[in-house]
């Protein structure tokens, strides 16, 4: 084996992995967090009975859902600068994840809202509640139960898909994995560790969803 190839992982590599983990967390918390907020509004608009709200929301959802995440990332990172808008790597990554997740999540939110029957709206309106009060106190708490399982599934999927941001050289977990394998050729060990770290990120979320679902469960 040539001298310049490092044959084991050292403490600096471990630190680099931790940095990658931290950056992936940053990317996902910011991107998916903002995406959730947007999804709430787009989902409400999509479920609206007013067409001037629901149609643009449907258009947004379809355009985003039906194009690849990687192309969206390229568009943000490479195409926007052509229009004179230079975007830092992290911002491009966060923006892409935000837009992408919001479209999928909006559709889940819409389905959750529409799963709540007209009866509940009638009862809320008959008591003098307005749209926002009905939504906040009656519909959303019940819709949450419908939204959480597929919603968390989506988030877990997107945490893993955030690895595509490695293509614009953002030093997140997957990019670190690539760097370390190029340096050590220990592909099996390095990618094994990277995969385990993704698991560490996603598994608690999965458990959280199960317990939230149990807590929100309405018998009958």
């Amino acid at each position, binding site marked *: 084996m040539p001298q310049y190839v490092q044959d084991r992982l050292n403490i600096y590599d471990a630190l680099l992995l931790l940095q990658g983990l931290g950056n992936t967390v940053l990317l996902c918390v910011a991107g998916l967090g903002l995406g959730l907020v947007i999804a709430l509004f787009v989902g409400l608009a999509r479920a609206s009975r007013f067409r001037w709200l629901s149609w643009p929301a449907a258009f947004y959802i379809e355009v985003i859902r039906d194009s690849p995440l990687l192309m969206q990332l390229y568009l943000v990172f490479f195409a926007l600068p052509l229009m004179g808008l230079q975007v830092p790597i992290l911002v491009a990554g966060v923006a892409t994840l935000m837009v992408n997740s919001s479209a999928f999540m909006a559709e889940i939110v819409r389905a959750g809202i529409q799963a709540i029957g007209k*009866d*509940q709206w*009638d*009862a809320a*309106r*008959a*008591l*003098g*509640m*307005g749209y926002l*009060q009905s939504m906040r*106190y*009656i519909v959303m*708490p*019940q819709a949450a139960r419908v939204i959480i399982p597929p919603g968390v599934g989506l988030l877990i999927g997107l945490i893993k898909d955030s690895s595509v941001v490695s293509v614009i050289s953002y030093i997140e977990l997957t990019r670190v994995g690539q760097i370390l394998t190029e340096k050590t050729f220990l592909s099996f060990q390095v990618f094994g560790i990277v995969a385990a770290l993704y698991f560490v990120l996603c598994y608690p979320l999965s458990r959280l969803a199960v317990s939230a679902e149990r807590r*929100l469960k*309405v*018998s*009958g």
Partner: protein
Amino acid sequence: MVKVKNIHKHFGHLHVLKDVSLDVARGEVVVIIGPSGSGKSTLLRCLNYLEPIQSGEIWVDGIRLDHHKTNIRQVRAEVGMVFQSFNLFPHLSVLRNVMLAPVIVRKRPEAEVRQEALAILAKVGLQDKTDAFPSQLSGGQQQRVAIARALCMQPKLMLFDEVTSALDPELVREVLDVMKQLARDGMTMIVVTHEMGFAREVADRVIFMDEGQIVEQGSAEDVFDRPQNQRTKEFLGKIL
């Protein structure tokens, strides 16, 4: 209390209410009967604007119902409604079901509302169920919670939309008893029902509706024992 002037209501091509007019005085108990599809439930739902009307006027306690949002919500807060299928909020306890609207719509202090809610729940015989969830209750108990929920808003008018139709026969009485008590307390009530015994006992006026029109009205004795209109006679012949 309620003034309905020449209202018309369409569902698409279907003309469900045809030129209906109705006056209900304060403290009056009006029972509306009629075959299914006659428009009685729709009329009730128009009175708090859960259904919009195409023409005519509806006045509740001196306020005209129109498309103005504040008016509608203001009126709805004054008008209690109880539904055939209870429509309790399944994610809230019995006490929370009753307390929610007075606190967030009327903006009354929570402690005061809690006292009143507990008193009303005791009145409908559910003092030991305040922490239960709707799914843990029988149909009759759920419907009594629904009545309590409406009463806690301190309504001036109560609308009952076939409230015993979804109940097992042995549970009907406990709900009717609560309604009778309410009538004795002087509540203004408009009741759509198939319970003719209840109508006889409690109604100040019985209205018979058919095909979107008020066909006949009068005291329970007049309508049940001496119906004038042919359609009333046919309907009563079928059900009595």
